[in-house]
């Protein structure tokens, strides 16, 4: 147990996700040993991110203006809407360069065990966007795990009666992997989603 400022910093750092007491201590002593200019820059970046970054009023992606860069772009398609769990998923999909439509960030996934239901996510806002009639395809790009699949099932249940085409990202074998190492669920899905050449 340290005293004063160094212990305060360790306590604050250990509250961050994925940082345990040992890592917090290591980071705190790194800060102590680092150049003052570097630490001032880090401190300014932390302050700026809280003061200037907000959520886009339309898609809830991170933005520095009222609307995010993607929602402001007039060249993007309005008829395709891709639903993701977190802003980092938008970045991952943008990296592919395959999708030119709009996004909607839910802010998580349905997880009853953690007390997260549909009302805790931005599903009401999504339904409101869809009711405008501009969207013809809703792409569900939630994570391929239990919570993500449950969220996709729930959204499909809610959206299909609106007459909008609902699609789900394909799942299957990773590029560069060996077939024999694939688990039965992944391989089964790859079979279900096979395509004609």
């Amino acid at each position, binding site marked *: 147990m340290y005293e004063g400022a160094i212990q305060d910093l360790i306590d604050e750092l250990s509250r961050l996700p994925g940082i345990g007491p040992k890592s917090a201590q290591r980071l705190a002593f790194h800060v102590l040993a680092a150049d003052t200019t570097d630490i001032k820059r880090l401190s300014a970046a932390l302050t700026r991110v809280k003061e200037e970054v907000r959520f886009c009023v339309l898609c809830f992606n991170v933005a520095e203006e009222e609307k995010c860069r993607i929602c402001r772009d007039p060249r993007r398609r309005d008829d395709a809407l891709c639903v993701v769990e977190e802003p980092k998923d938008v970045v991952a999909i943008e990296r592919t360069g395959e999708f030119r439509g709009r996004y909607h960030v839910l802010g998580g996934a349905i997880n009853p065990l953690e007390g997260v239901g549909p009302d805790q996510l931005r599903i009401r806002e999504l339904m409101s966007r869809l009711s405008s009639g501009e969207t013809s395809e809703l792409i569900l790009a939630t994570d391929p795990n239990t919570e993500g699949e449950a969220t996709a099932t729930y959204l499909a249940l809610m959206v299909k009666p609106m007459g909008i085409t609902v699609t789900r990202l394909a799942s299957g074998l*990773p590029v560069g992997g060996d077939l024999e*190492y694939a688990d039965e669920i992944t391989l089964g899905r790859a079979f279900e989603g096979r395509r004609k050449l």
Partner: protein
Amino acid sequence: MRKPLYRDHALVLRVQRLGEADRIISLLTRTHGRVRAVARGVRRTTSRFGARLEPFGHIDVQCSEGSSLDTVMQVEGLSLFGRHLLEDYPRYTTASAIAETAERLTPIEKEPTLRLYLLTLGALNALAEKERPATLILDAYLLRAMSYAGWAPSLRACAVCAEAGPHRAFSVPAGGVVCPNCRPPGAAHPSTDALNLMNALLEGDWGTAQSTDVKIRGESSGLVAAHLQWHLERGLRSLPLVDRRESTT
């Protein structure tokens, strides 16, 4: 020194993220009770057994013992119920409530609970097979799980003085039906059909249970939930989120 290994059949109750790509898996095992184990690298797409460690899976698992958490070394899928449950949102939310109940009723890790393991396995299997309405499976599970924990509601005799019933009033703090002499203020007055349904679910009389209508089932579910939450002291997070619509498939 090599840490001791053990192998067991288990149900995956809950998964929590740990660090960059790991998960903490809460397992209800056949012979080792509830176990928490770290599964390393399972969030990476290249993981060889990540998909088998999703919630509600019935697995054959090999773990190495650790000082606080064990480590998952190898997993084979026996019946991965999650795949079927995820196609049906009401059944998924029901399975979540079952998993949370199993976790809460096993507060001490590595204390064998074979009966609860078999009950949970049966409930998840019935849900995945779509054999019976999800709400009935959930209420039957909760009543029997409470019974194993020593909290079975008294449904025939008065919960206070043991006078033979039938009695009309139901008191959650008293622990079941109560006679007119023992009835505390605020006791509920459920219908006879709702009490009969609870009894049928506790005894496994599915013929009687399935012949009831939605209103009676709702009344019974309310009493079961209130009884469970009273004994658990802290409410279940998943129970209010159970989608009680009829299954979609």
